[in-house]
Each structure stands twice: as structure tokens, then as C-alpha cells.
């Protein structure tokens, strides 16, 4: 059958008047989309190999290259869209599962974009963050039922302890991204930015590389179903431990790192043989129910002398509110919930685009449920799954989150152009690859600066919005849904979010 399997998604335009045949594009493209023709002394491009990462376009010294989206190749059809047709061709040919990277790009409702934030006018003053203190310091951990305080001659003295907490200078953490799925330089950038800004990054299930151990105090380590890299020192050196049950982009399945990516360095970090596939089982085989989770939580607490918060990460699925309640009752100090727009290094497309629920609804439902049950104080809520801006964060906190994880946003700060080809290991930006030729493109000290810049900018914006609403401490925003209004939302959506519609006063 004359089927063309690798039809191009993009058009590579080269302005030959500008091109000086310097071959930068040739060297930069790991997909071999550009080739130098020595006979003609010109550079040629093969659009079908282009993934749309815009690396060549960004680095072309004469701005000769433009990458454009290619217009439809098939007759317009609202039902049978291009992607369906192409995917069927591919799958009929290969018999394989369609893989993809990053979060879902499907046009599902983004609730953040249907929520508006409040500001103070007349009846109470807005507060100017340039002139007044504006506090966004955030704590992650469980709160005890009560405190014992003793009164003596000199004043009051605390007799009971709070329990382990993480202290964050801003309510933003870097989400779990493993060494393996991303390069060591990317990990270094995240770890060192977390360290310098006073927040935390998360190892994912990639283990803790020896070069990152001095950032351990700003590291949340993950215990996932494959248990890669988990040992006593790994648990004890970290600031907190997170048990990974699920990930927003692929609820119900485990991670998969192909053997080709398991280099010597990754092999020793993950404690697996070099070149072997690192396939995490879909469930934890020691957790078939909630009581098993409680055992693992307390096993880790025992191993870490009850000195570190132990949390559980789950993907946002239909029954998320009772699941989160169970996790809190099982003893977790924080619950991380990853919405279905959350990113991934590799996931089956069918799952990424169709399984799970948006984080906004999951968060609202969980916070409400935990409050109804009177256990909201027992655990912090960290949410993830496509936080794109500081305004998404402020809305998340007003819905009830303690803090947010950012993954994709952090990678974009490092240069990611969202081409969604992370699973190929050919990331031209040096992020989602282990090829030394590519990874050296990401300079960790520049990466650190860019990530710190993002945190600083977003923190400033959070302070501006807080002050505008007449609030000078972030804890007064947490779960304060009075400051949110919905727009273009149905009654049921408003009721799940627990907010009024724009135009409704107090």
C-alpha cells in the first residue's frame, strides 16, 4: 500500500538569501532534519524529520530558518481528524502503542482560565508589597491535634513539638523528574535553584545522583513502584520522602525508561544493571490497598526516625476525594495530587489524553472533603498538573492547596519548546536526553539562574496579587474561595469548585 507513514507535521522554510551555510542547524538537530550538501554548498532540510523543537530556528545566526505548522493534509473532517488518521496508519503498520511526551495538548477545559481573582476596593485597603511586608513563606507537613503550652514566670513555653515540616520561601516546588528522564545537567539546575531559593526539588524515581547529594537538604526523594535507587542513605539524607502511587499523565501505569538510556551513571544511581530497561510496575506490589500504604508510610517513617515528612503522590482520578482522605488517614504528612494535564517523559497517548480529571476540580473536591471530615490539618496538599503562571498558583492556593509542584514550567524555563518528543531521548535542548553531545547544551549554572528567575518573578506576582486583595500572609488565602469567581461555568462546576460566579457579591 502506498501509505506515507512519516508525513511531516511542519514546514521548514529556509531563506536562501539569508542562509550562509554555516551548518549550525545541521549540528544542532539531533533528528537529522538538516543536511549539508557539499556539492551544492547549500543546506537542505527534510521536513518529515522535524519535531518542531525550534532549536535550529533559535540558533540560526542569520534568522534564515522558520518552522511553521503544516496545513491539513487530509480533507477537513471534524470527526476524523488528522491525528486519528495518522495514528491509525502508524499503528496498523507497527502494531504498537502510541507514545508521547509532556502533558495532554487536547482542548479540555482549563479551569484556571475560568476563574478570576479578587482585589480590595474602598471598604478595605489593598496592601502595597513594595512598602509593606508580604509573607508567602509556606510549610508542608502534618499539624498535631493540640499543643501543650506551659505558663511560667518568664512567659510561655512550648511543651509539645510540631512534627517534621518543610519550610519553603515560596509556595512552589519543582515536581518529580527523574535522572534518566531528564539529563543530569537539568537535575543539577533544579537542585541548585531549589537550594538557592529556599525550596525543594524532587528526584522522581531516578535515585539521587552522587553529584546532587550536597543538595539533599532541598531534596524530596521518591519511592516508586520500581524502588529504583532506594536505600537507607537515600531516605535519610533527604528533606522529605514521597511515595509515588501515580502520575497525572499516566494514571494506573508505571514509569518506563528504555535500556538504551540506562548509561553507567544512571545504572549506578538507580541501582540496576547497565543497559537494562527500568520498568516500574503499574502498582506497588506491596500496596494492594490503603492499609498496605499505611504500612509503607510507617516503614519509611521508622527508617527516617520520624524526622521527615512522608507524603504520597497520586494522580487525580474520579474518586480522588475519598482516596486522599484515605491517604491522610493512613498517616501521610502531605498529599501530592497530579492532574491529568500533568507532564511526563513518556506515556501512552491514549492514557495521557483520556484518563484522570483536571487538577482544579480534584483539588477543590479534596480540600472540601478533608475539611468536612475534620482532617485537613493532618496533611498538606501539594498540587501539580499544569501550573502555567503565578495566577494559576494564586487560584490553586485559594482553592485550598498548600503549595504547587511545577514540572513543565521549570523545563520551559530551561529552554523546552514543548515538542513532546521527550520519549525519543533526542532532546535538542539538552533536557530530556542522555546523549552527552546534547546534554552539554544545558549549562547548569545558567539553568539555575533561569529557574531562580522564574521563582522570583512568580513570587513577586503572587505578592502583588495577594496585596491587591488586602492580604499580607499567604495562609490567609489558603482555601479562601471567597476571593475567587467563576466565569462561563455551569452550576455543577461552580459547586464542585465551591466558588460563586462572577457578578455574585458576598
Amino acid at each position: 500500500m502506498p501509505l506515507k507513514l512519516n508525513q511531516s507535521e511542519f514546514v521548514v522554510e529556509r531563506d536562501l538569501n539569508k542562509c550562509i551555510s554555516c551548518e549550525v542547524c545541521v549540528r544542532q538537530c539531533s533528528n537529522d532534519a538538516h543536511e549539508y550538501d557539499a556539492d551544492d554548498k547549500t543546506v537542505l532540510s527534510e521536513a518529515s524529520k522535524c519535531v518542531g523543537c525550534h532549536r535550529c530556528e533559535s540558533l540560526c545566526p542569520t534568522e534564515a530558518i522558520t518552522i511553521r505548522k503544516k496545513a491539513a493534509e487530509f480533507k477537513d473532517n471534524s470527526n476524523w481528524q488528522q491525528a486519528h488518521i495518522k495514528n491509525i496508519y502508524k499503528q496498523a503498520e507497527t502494531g504498537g502503542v502510541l507514545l508521547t511526551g509532556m502533558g495532554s495538548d487536547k482542548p479540555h477545559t482549563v479551569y484556571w482560565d475560568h476563574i478570576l481573582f479578587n482585589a480590595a476596593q474602598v471598604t478595605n485597603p489593598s496592601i502595597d508589597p513594595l512598602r509593606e511586608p508580604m509573607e508567602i513563606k509556606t510549610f508542608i507537613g502534618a499539624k498535631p491535634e493540640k499543643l501543650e503550652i506551659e505558663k511560667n514566670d518568664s512567659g510561655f513555653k512550648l511543651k509539645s513539638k510540631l512534627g517534621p515540616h518543610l519550610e519553603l520561601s515560596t509556595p512552589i516546588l519543582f515536581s518529580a523528574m527523574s535522572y534518566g528522564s531528564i539529563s543530569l545537567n537539568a537535575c543539577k539546575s533544579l537542585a541548585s535553584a531549589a537550594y538557592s531559593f529556599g525550596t525543594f526539588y524532587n528526584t522522581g524515581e531516578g535515585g539521587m545522583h552522587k553529584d546532587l547529594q550536597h543538595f539533599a537538604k532541598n531534596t524530596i526523594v521518591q519511592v516508586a513502584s520500581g524502588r529504583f535507587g532506594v536505600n537507607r542513605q537515600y531516605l535519610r539524607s533527604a528533606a522529605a520522602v514521597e511515595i509515588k502511587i501515580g502520575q497525572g499523565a499516566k494514571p494506573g501505569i508505571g514509569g518506563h525508561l528504555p535500556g538504551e538510556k540506562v548509561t553507567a551513571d544512571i545504572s549506578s544511581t538507580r541501582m540496576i544493571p547497565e543497559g537494562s530497561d527500568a520498568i516500574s510496575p503499574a502498582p506497588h506490589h506491596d500496596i494492594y490497598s490503603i492499609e498496605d500504604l499505611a504500612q509503607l508510610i510507617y516503614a519509611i517513617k521508622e527508617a527516617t526516625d520520624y524526622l521527615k515528612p512522608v507524603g504520597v503522590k497520586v494522580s487525580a482520578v474520579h474518586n480522588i476525594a475519598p482516596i486522599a482522605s484515605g491517604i491522610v488517614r493512613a498517616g501521610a504528612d502531605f498529599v501530592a495530587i497530579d492532574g491529568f494535564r500533568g507532564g511526563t517523559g513518556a506515556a501512552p497517548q491514549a492514557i495521557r489524553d483520556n484518563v484522570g480529571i483536571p487538577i482544579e476540580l480534584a483539588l477543590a473536591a479534596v480540600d472540601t472533603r478533608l475539611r468536612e471530615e475534620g482532617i485537613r490539618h493532618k496533611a498538606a496538599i501539594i498540587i501539580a498538573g499544569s501550573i502555567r503562571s503565578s495566577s494559576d498558583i494564586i487560584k490553586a492556593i485559594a482553592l485550598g492547596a498548600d503549595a504547587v509542584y511545577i514540572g513543565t514550567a521549570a523545563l520551559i524555563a530551561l529552554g523546552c519548546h514543548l515538542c513532546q518528543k521527550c520519549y525519543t531521548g533526542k532532546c535538542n535542548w539538552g533536557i530530556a536526553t542522555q546523549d552527552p553531545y546534547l546534554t552539554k547544551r544545558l549549562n547548569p549554572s545558567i539553568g539555575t539562574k533561569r529557574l531562580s528567575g522564574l521563582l522570583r518573578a512568580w513570587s513577586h506576582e503572587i505578592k502583588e496579587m495577594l496585596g491587591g486583595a488586602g492580604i499580607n500572609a499567604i495562609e490567609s488565602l489558603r482555601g479562601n474561595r471567597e476571593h475567587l469567581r467563576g466565569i462561563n461555568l455551569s452550576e455543577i462546576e461552580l459547586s464542585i469548585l465551591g466558588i460563586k460566579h462572577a457578578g455574585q457579591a458576598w
Partner: protein
Amino acid sequence: MSISLIKNKKSDYPGYRVPSGCAVFGVLNESGSCFDGRTIIDGIEMMHDRSNGLGGGFAAYGIYPQYKNDWAFHILYDDSDARNRMEDILKKSFAVLYFEELPTKRSPAIENPPMIFRYFLKLKDIYSLYERNVPVDNFSEDDFIVDFVLKMNARVSGAYIISSGKNMGIFKGVGFPEDIGHYFRLDEYKGYLWTSHGRFPTNSVGWWGGAHPFGLLNFSIVHNGEISSYGRNQRYVASLGYECSLSTDTEVITYLFDLLARKKNMDIELLNMILAAPLWERIEEMPEDDRELASTLRIMYGGALINGPFSIIAGHNDFMYALNDRIKLRPMVAARKNDYLYVSSEESAIIKVCPQPDIVWRPQGGIPVIGRVKKKD
């Protein structure tokens, strides 16, 4: 008379919140000597322009010495039917020692007042009242009263309990505070602690039950400000069993006081560390023990931090407690003269009733002014 006069019509405006600007004034005699209500009326009257005639009220302590160990309820009624319904319920739980309609002086300044009765009550055995679901070990008479008042106010139509303490009473309604004071003939009462409130609500018609002070057990709260943390505070107390039925700042602040000072049994000297918690930069500067206490309280009770502008005067049989928000976005002046402690939105009120105080000061944001009643016996 419409019920909207004494109760917020939740069915018409579900979840409406009622912010308001205001005047507050409180006077305490720390030695427990009683003085009549003219002082408080004269003071609050000086701040007439801080109210707009949509609410005024007073809390008075020490006014019912003959029933000082019994519950004193003030209840607003729309009509006799409501009164009969409420009294039937009251009689199931309480022995009524004495009751009467509150004496008032009719005045053109007060339009359409509801019926207002006072009751002196003794609680019957609480265990017989709760046949099911009694957490017997931890359930006190105070808990019963709180539960009773919140439930009755939410459920009994046409009736509203505005005052539920001992040897104290709340007098409030729609009008300017001085007119309300004269209407209730407060010059004929003597108490050792008086607080008062003049209201300037921004978005609601006045209604009698929604005037301030707001009371629960012996606590009464008057408050000037519009708190920006309302949603957080309301959800925080809701998860601990307090349902905010009035949607006013004062209501939620009262529940925070009840939660912390009564239920959690926290010393009132610690309350400001929670309600107007010190800034982190101040906490960092504290000596180690204080720092640990302050940061722990702040982390633990973040839901009880009151944010945005407020000046609060809390009345209680044992003390008067005044607090400004931590960056002082609302005015508050305090003064002392002999055994008297005065707290006011404006100094004018104090000077009116005490022309030459020993000391006048403007309390720092987040630093409480506490006056305690020295026990006489």
C-alpha cells in the same frame, strides 16, 4: 413585621457576606465597680459619623447580679408565634427562673422594633437532654449552650438569640448606637464592663440580629473592619463544627475566640500570636524559646490568622481584650484613668467621658490591650 428585621434571609441571598465599617468603644473598671450605661452611650455618640444608622449595639457585664450564676438569654422575636415556638423548646432544656420583655423607651429614631425578651435559665441535666450521640466525657454545659444557640438561630424561624452568657447582656438593633442605647434604657443598668458598636454596613439593609456586638456564651465581640481572610477563617471554623449562619466578620471572629480561648483553653495573652500573628521577620529576631512558640502557633493555627483591617474589642466576664490587625489598618486608641481602661476607634470618645486620662496610647498593630477584672470575692 418582616422577619428580615431580625434575621438574614439566607434563602434569598445564600451565603451573602456582610462587611461593614464601624466605630467601637469599650470601658472596663478593673476593680469591678459598676457604672451606668450613660458613659458608654456618651462615648459612642461622639463617633456618630462612623455609623450610618443601620446598626448599633452594646454589651454590658455585671448587670444581672441577682442571677449571676444563671444563663441570661436575650431573644429577638418577629411575633408571638415565634416566641411560643422558642419558649416550648427552651422549656425542654431549661428551667426558666424568670423572664420578661426587655424594658424599652419608644422613640421615633427606632423604627419597627421586634419583640425582645430576656430569660434567666438553669440548664436541666445535660445527659438527659442528649439521648444519643453524647460524647459524655468531653461535653460540658458550655458546649451544650453553644450547640443550642447555634442550632436555634439556624433553625427556629422568627426567633434569634442575641445574648447567651451569665451576668451579662447584649442590647442591639437597627439605628444609631446612641438611639439604641436610649431605646434600651441603658442608663438604668450598672455594669463594670461595657462595649459598644456603631455600624456602617456597605451592602446590606440593617437587620436587628445582624447588629453588633455578636455574642456567644460570655464572649461578646465588636469589630471594625473588613477582613480579607474571611473565607479562610470561615472554612477553618466550619471544619471544627462552627457553622457561620450570619456571614459576618464578627460572627467568625467570635467563633475563633470561642475555639481558642474556651475550647483550646488558650491563655488570652497568647491569642494575638494567632489572630494577628507576628511577621516572620519579627519571629526570626525572637529568643529561641519564644521563636519556637511563635512559629509553631503560626504554622499550627494559620487558619485562625485574621488578615486585612480590623480593630476588635472582646468583652468577657473576666476581661476586656482589644486587638488591632498586625499592620494597623484600622484606628484604635487606648487610655487609662485610675481603675478604668478605655479602648476606642477615636480618642474623642474617650475624652468625652474621661477628659483627663492618666495615659493615652495608640496600641501597636498585633499587640493586645488587656484589662482584667480583679476578683472581688
